């Protein structure tokens, strides 16, 4: 049993999706079902590296931010009338927060390089979070985006010499996949609100930026990740929820091929 729990597929795939299914199904009748993302992600962390706050590395700060994000999301969801303003503010704040997350890396660089890298990361995180927050009223679109983004960040991370990014990305994808299964099972879309979209967008953005700064992800893979929330904004069937989910996941997976391909190209120097 212990050997099974050591397997990466169990840690990042099976465990998160199982936790997401159980928690989301339990909370499906409330507006907090998307909180399931966090225990699902936490399950991967617990099985992979365990929880530790010291020393405060980029990876540990990312986990901490991801675990706190839904609490901020719950508070933001209390003000639906101001949601557009809140979304913009959260995008900017999370972008600036990324400077704190990546301080230990940026301070090791030459000043000009650090400023350029920091500005790029701030912009990317802010835009990615804004793009995912736009889907806060649409459970299928948000879930499909999470699946596509998680897989893209994870597989691109693997090609960039980071198994940690693979684990985190696949866990987010598995958790969002669990949310899609619950929606399909209950035949009811579950709006994620800020509670669900903030942790998904923020975690995916921070893991991707971390793979750029700490591993070998090429910089041009980051803007290509934005194709995924753009793709899931395309028209999708409305008459049957399962068909809608399937089409949206299809959009997300096709769009995910592009940043994955960019990471592969950077690793190999060619596509073949």
């Amino acid at each position, binding site marked *: 049993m212990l050997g099974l729990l050591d397997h990466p597929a169990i840690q990042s795939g099976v465990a998160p999706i199982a936790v997401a299914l159980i928690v989301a199904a339990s909370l499906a009748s409330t507006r907090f079902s998307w909180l399931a993302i966090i225990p699902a992600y936490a399950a991967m962390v617990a099985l992979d590296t365990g929880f530790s706050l010291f020393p405060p590395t*980029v990876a540990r700060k990312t986990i901490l931010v991801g675990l706190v994000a839904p609490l901020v999301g719950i508070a933001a969801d209390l003000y639906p009338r101001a949601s557009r303003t809140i979304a913009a503010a959260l995008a900017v704040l999370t972008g600036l927060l990324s400077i704190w997350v990546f301080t230990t890396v940026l301070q090791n660089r030459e000043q000009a390089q650090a400023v350029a890298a920091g500005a790029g990361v701030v912009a990317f995180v802010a835009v990615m979070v804004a793009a995912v927050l736009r889907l806060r009223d649409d459970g299928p679109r948000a879930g499909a985006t999470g699946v596509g983004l998680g897989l893209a960040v994870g597989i691109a991370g693997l090609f960039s010499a980071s198994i940690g990014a693979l684990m985190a990305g696949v866990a987010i994808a598995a958790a969002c996949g669990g949310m899609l299964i619950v929606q399909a099972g209950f035949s009811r879309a579950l709006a994620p609100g800020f509670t669900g979209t903030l942790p998904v967008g923020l975690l995916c953005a921070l893991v991707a930026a971390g793979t750029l700064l700490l591993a070998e992800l090429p910089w041009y893979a980051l803007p290509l990740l934005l194709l995924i929330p753009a793709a899931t904004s395309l028209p999708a069937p409305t008459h049957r929820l399962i068909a809608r989910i399937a089409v949206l996941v299809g959009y997300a997976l096709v769009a995910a091929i592009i940043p994955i391909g960019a990471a592969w190209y950077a690793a190999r120097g060619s596509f073949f």
Partner: protein
Amino acid sequence: MFKRLAILVLASVPFAAGAASDSYTFDPLHTSISFSIDHLGLAMIHGRFSKYSGKFTIDRAAKTGAVELNVETASVDTNDNDKGSRPRSRDEHLRSADFFNAAEFPRMTYKSTHVVFAGDVPTVVQGDLTLLGVSKPVAITVERFRCNPSTATARERCGGSATARIRRSDFGMKRGIPSIGDEVLLSFGFEGDKD
């Protein structure tokens, strides 16, 4: 009487000079820092660090000494820079956040706290290794230590070999355990000219 006193004072000067601590800087051409680690319970994978700096001091009379070593983590080298059909080489992976996290922690350091002597020769160096921002006590066993005296054309040179064992998980480096071993054997071959 004053003449005898003067002779006694002059005769004691070399001993007073010998009681001072001698400092040696590691010679990069004749110093190596290598490690080996178990892989899948099959082979031991060997690697080294090619960029480092530091010095060691020794005071044989007082039976004290010190070692300070700074190693650049990005210089890790397991003789695997050719990716072949893989997306990334092992050395690229070792530099990433999964292992040495060189971008965030560009250096690992060792600073001694105490040196144990057997006669005039150091046998154990106790100190703190700081890796990935975590400091843990690590004892280095000195297996050989000797010095060649200075000549007309060369300074005094000391050197030897030493080993140590650490558990990388103690420093937060847990990726790959147990497929990739937790225990790491460190081996040092060192030489240094007297400063």
